[in-house]
């Protein structure tokens, strides 16, 4: 029986990595991810986790070392955030293109300048198109459960793709929460051994990441796209199996009082929990509002999003990242694109807020919802509005 313990979420990620019996961890510490890799380094140093811990000189090297480890068939984990994720940016594409199931926890952080170590989703949005499976989480339990799922999903023979688990910097990474840590025997049954079908092996040489001239590059990208899109079925199956074992269920799009709601708010990450409080209050006041939480960011859950919002009149999307000079926040842009050709769709209103660790309180979400309703009626001169900015 799993124990429920009070533990910092970063340390709990380390415990999940230990339970997954990871072989190689290559990482470079960066706030607010540092506690994760510190805890893993302790576990390895104390002999609790039999893994190679490689303290590399940069994030670019961290991801590169992870690729090499994964390519020989080692179960591989790393973590990063903000500028660190940006520094490993080019290597992220190589992990997905070479089909290497590295698992990475990203403690979402704002991007410089000005220097901000605090949380938002700018780093996640900058790596949107790197071909990784990407899952957002809203509390510590979701983080741990999805780190475990990430190994099983990514290493599935039909998937073989790297997986990012996004958790908000500080708001999640540094919180101490009561978390069910599964038993080793349960995890052993849940995550089968990793076996890459074509690993680097001197006895049977292969070449990974060879050059692709114009006559073949398009075909390689088509194969990659089909592969990532098809991974959704494996993700759904993994979450279903996880639920049947651990009684905690996850879905690409999750809803809260959305069934009959004419007004919907869409959020990602930890601020979704705050938003549920606002929905509760507004419901008590008799207002017909609900919440949609986007968990699976890549592959994008088109069908689930369309189903979740089709009966609403207004959909208010909160982005915690800014696409400078663009049509809306990056999440809202994709939601709009997913709905554009639908016959029945809500009006979509875009807000950007919660940047660089700025809190949004339950009252803040009430303001966002009220302003969103107003914009849906009167329109706005702006493509999107920045919530909470001092004018």
């Amino acid at each position, binding site marked *: 029986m799993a124990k429920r313990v009070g533990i910092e979420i970063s340390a709990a990620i380390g415990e999940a990595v230990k339970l997954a019996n990871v072989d190689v961890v290559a990482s470079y510490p960066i706030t607010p991810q540092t506690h994760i890799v510190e805890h893993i380094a302790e576990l390895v140093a104390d002999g609790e986790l039999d893994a190679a811990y490689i303290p590399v000189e940069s994030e670019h090297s961290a991801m590169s070392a992870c690729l090499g480890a994964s390519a020989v068939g080692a179960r591989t984990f790393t973590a990063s955030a903000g500028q660190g994720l940006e520094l490993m940016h080019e290597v992220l594409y190589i992990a997905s293109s070479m089909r290497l199931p590295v698992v990475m926890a990203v403690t979402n952080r704002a991007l410089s300048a000005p220097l901000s170590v605090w949380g938002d989703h700018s780093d996640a949005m900058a790596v949107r198109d790197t071909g990784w499976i990407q899952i957002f989480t809203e509390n510590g339990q979701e983080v741990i459960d999805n780190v475990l799922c990430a190994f099983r999903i990514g290493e599935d023979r039909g998937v073989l793709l790297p997986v990012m688990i996004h958790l908000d910097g500080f708001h999640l990474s540094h919180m101490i929460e009561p978390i069910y840590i599964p038993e080793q025997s349960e995890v052993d049954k849940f995550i089968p051994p990793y076996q890459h079908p074509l690993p680097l092996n001197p006895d049977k040489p292969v070449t990974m990441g060879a050059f692709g001239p114009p006559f*073949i590059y398009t*075909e390689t990208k088509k194969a990659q796209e089909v592969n990532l899109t098809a991974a959704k079925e494996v993700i759904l199956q993994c979450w279903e199996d996880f639920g049947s074992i651990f009684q905690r269920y996850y879905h690409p799009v999750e809803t809260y009082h959305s069934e009959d709601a004419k007004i919907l708010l869409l959020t990602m990450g930890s601020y979704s929990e705050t938003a549920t409080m606002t929905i509760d209050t507004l419901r008590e006041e008799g207002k017909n509002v609900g919440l949609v939480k986007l968990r699976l960011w890549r592959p994008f859950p088109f069908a689930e999003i369309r189903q979740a919002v089709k009966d609403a009149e207004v959909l208010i999307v909160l982005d915690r990242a800014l696409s400078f000079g663009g049509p809306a926040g990056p999440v809202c842009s994709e939601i709009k694109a997913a709905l554009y050709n639908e016959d029945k769709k809500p009006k979509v209103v875009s807000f950007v807020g919660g940047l660089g660790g700025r809190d949004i309180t339950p009252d803040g979400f009430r303001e966002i919802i009220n302003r969103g309703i107003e914009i849906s009626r009167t329109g706005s001169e702006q493509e999107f509005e920045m919530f909470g900015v001092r004018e």
Partner: protein
Amino acid sequence: MAKLEGELTWKDLEIGSIVVEPGNASQYQTGDWRSQRPALDVKRCIKCGICYIFCPEGCIIQNAEGYFESNLFYCKGCGICACECPTEAITMVEGE
């Protein structure tokens, strides 16, 4: 390879486009990148082998008579051999 490389569909590729046949880059004709080829004047050649050492493609081999010749299947026409040749025995010329 059952299909010619230009006929491969995305379904024919190994996962991650991994190359499973070691050394098959030797089948790739880098010679068709070339706009000029090296021409050797055997009267000037002293068989020193400097062109052989400097060729970045490694496509120069010594023939039975001791002269150094470029394998035009691989030669990209970079002209380094002509530039380095101490007796100006190699010149870059148009055409095959």
